[in-house]
């Protein structure tokens, strides 16, 4: 069994007892040992916990128990989801050394599915960023070119997949943090419909936008993981009580004949790299060959999405991150007996939070303050309505919408870290999906001519119709695979020491 296999292939080999879950976990740990010093996808490895889970799966299988489809397959977990007893930092100094006393619902579901959680992956601090450079523990490097960013905030999860350190990963997506890392690493990532996957135990950044979702190297693997973690959770009051669409069946169908696919006019043109647009257009041509019908749609208010997002997300974050007050968990600075609680709080938050987090807390505090509330936060909420209306009108004319996932390929580490606005522009095509609460997928559609780096293709589906992304994604992936002759990650340079 090769670590380059898909999760579905690994699951099959496990079922046929060609390999044990313990062996498979150890193979991945050997790869992590070999390449993660260069990639830095992981913040923490839970070898003991993972091998115990793998062993228990092997025993159950040996005893002839019927196991869930992904039982024994390894996974990398973004460090923003709490896992009982395993360090969870959210990429922040604020939570250094913290071991959560409970499991997130996603983690409970992963464990119930028999999935083996190898460790926690690096991310921009509290999921704020598009490059993983905002991690307090140092950046993750893109396996395609170690001098470049792996996207963010879930750069660790995406890089772990692209470096074959894990075949499955969990990400979270507030403005594109699953999809943009997938795009720049040539992996697949899905932001499910808001409320489709529980947020219980997902450390909150912007509660009305945050959504956990599956990441993998193939559309089918992503669908299988989606099926494993989705579903109603009474512990999350925003969880939707709606049957999970059959995303696995959709991923396998590979038939888009007669499907209406809308190209969003506003998600192209100025700001989009030429090679990105070219590969996107080539992929659209493949869909046409497969019998899909293309319609152009206009979403005029998307122009205001980025501005609305950078008011709503910081506003919610300024409120959510108030919980890091040094009283109940996390670090505490300056408590020498001479200072009051407020002073200790101020000092702890000065040391515990990084620059981007402080920037957003201050921006959000401003947008919510009396006298500015209506002009900023209130106006942003109105734009959110307009964007939802744009989507509603577009979905009248088509089944799914498509665009490039990110306007450019991976940029150099350090290139945009001093310019917040330039960094925010990375999310221009992914943000509308979060504001409207609908589903979004990114899958690789080729390498840009000018730099030979991966380009992401975004598919957007109406709320609770997540299966449509998998339907289109599965068909497009198969067409592109036969065109390229091998998986896109086989075009990436081999990492030093890679197994």
């Amino acid at each position, binding site marked *: 069994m090769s670590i380059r296999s898909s999760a579905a292939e690994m699951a099959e080999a496990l079922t046929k007892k060609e390999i044990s879950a313990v062996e498979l976990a150890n193979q991945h740990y050997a790869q992590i040992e070999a390449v993660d010093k260069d990639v830095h996808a992981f913040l923490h490895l839970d070898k003991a916990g993972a091998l115990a889970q793998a062993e228990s799966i092997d025993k159950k299988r040996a005893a002839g128990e019927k196991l869930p489809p992904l039982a024994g397959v390894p996974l990398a977990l973004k460090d923003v989801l709490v896992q009982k007893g395993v360090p969870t930092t959210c990429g922040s100094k604020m939570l250094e050394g*913290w*071991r*959560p*006393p*409970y499991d997130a619902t996603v983690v409970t579901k992963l464990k119930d599915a028999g999935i083996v959680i190898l460790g926690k992956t690096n991310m921009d601090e509290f999921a704020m960023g598009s490059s993983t450079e905002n991690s307090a523990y140092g950046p993750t490097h893109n396996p395609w070119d170690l001098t470049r960013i792996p996207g963010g905030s879930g750069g660790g999860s995406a890089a772990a997949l692209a470096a074959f350190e894990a075949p499955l990963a969990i990400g979270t997506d507030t403005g594109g943090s699953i999809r943009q890392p997938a795009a720049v690493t040539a992996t697949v990532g899905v932001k499910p419909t*808001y*409320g489709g996957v529980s947020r219980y135990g997902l450390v909150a950044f912007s509660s*009305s*936008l945050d959504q956990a979702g599956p990441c993998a190297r193939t559309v089918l693997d992503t669908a299988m993981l989606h099926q494993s973690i989705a579903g109603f959770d*009474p512990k999350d*009051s*925003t*969880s*939707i009580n709606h049957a999970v669409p059959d995303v696995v069946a959709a991923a396998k169908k590979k038939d888009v004949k007669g499907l209406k696919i809308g190209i969003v006019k506003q998600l192209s043109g100025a700001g989009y790299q030429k090679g990105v647009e070219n590969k996107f257009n080539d992929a659209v041509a493949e869909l046409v060959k497969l019998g899909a019908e293309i319609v152009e749609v206009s979403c005029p208010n998307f122009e*205001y999405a980025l*501005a*609305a997002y*950078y*008011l709503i997300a910081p506003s919610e974050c*300024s409120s959510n991150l*108030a919980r890091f*007050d040094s*009283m*109940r*968990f*996390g670090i*505490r600075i300056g*408590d020498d007996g001479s*200072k*009051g*609680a407020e*002073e200790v*709080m*101020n000092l702890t*938050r000065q040391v515990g939070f990084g620059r981007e987090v*402080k*920037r957003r*807390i*201050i*921006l959000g*505090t*401003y947008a919510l*303050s009396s006298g500015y509330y209506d*002009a*900023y936060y209130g*106006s*942003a*909420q*109105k734009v*959110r*309505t*307009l964007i*939802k209306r744009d989507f509603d009108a577009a979905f009248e004319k088509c089944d799914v919408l498509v665009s490039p996932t990110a306007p450019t390929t991976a940029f150099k580490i350090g290139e945009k870290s001093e310019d*917040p*606005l330039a960094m925010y522009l990375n999310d221009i095509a992914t943000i509308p999906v*979060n504001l*409207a*609460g*609908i589903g979004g997928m990114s899958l690789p559609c080729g390498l840009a001519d000018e730099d030979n780096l991966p380009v992401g293709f975004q598919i957007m589906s109406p*709320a609770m119709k997540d299966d449509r992304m998998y339907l289109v994604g599965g068909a497009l992936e198969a067409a592109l695979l036969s065109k390229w002759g091998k998986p896109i990650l086989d075009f990436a340079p081999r990492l030093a020491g890679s197994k």
Partner: protein
Amino acid sequence: MSAISREEVANLARLARIEMSDAELDHLSGEMQVILGAVARVQEVASADVPPTSHPIPVNNVVREDAVIPSLSPTDALSGAPASSEQRFKVPQILGEAE
């Protein structure tokens, strides 16, 4: 759009309970100016007749049965506390100076 002053940023930092050095305040005031200039665009289309959306998929009246269910033990709940004593979180002084 009104410009944001260094004093305003200092006040926001105070409200947000974040100690900031002079250098941090200088840097952040400049950045706030630029970012606010960019995000203020939302006002161009936010007319009075557009209702606000706070939540993408509205779910209403989410209630649960008023039943006792297991919760964290005091030991677990305090396991991440910076300081604790007698099954309680131990915090720095919160009221005036001890005399």
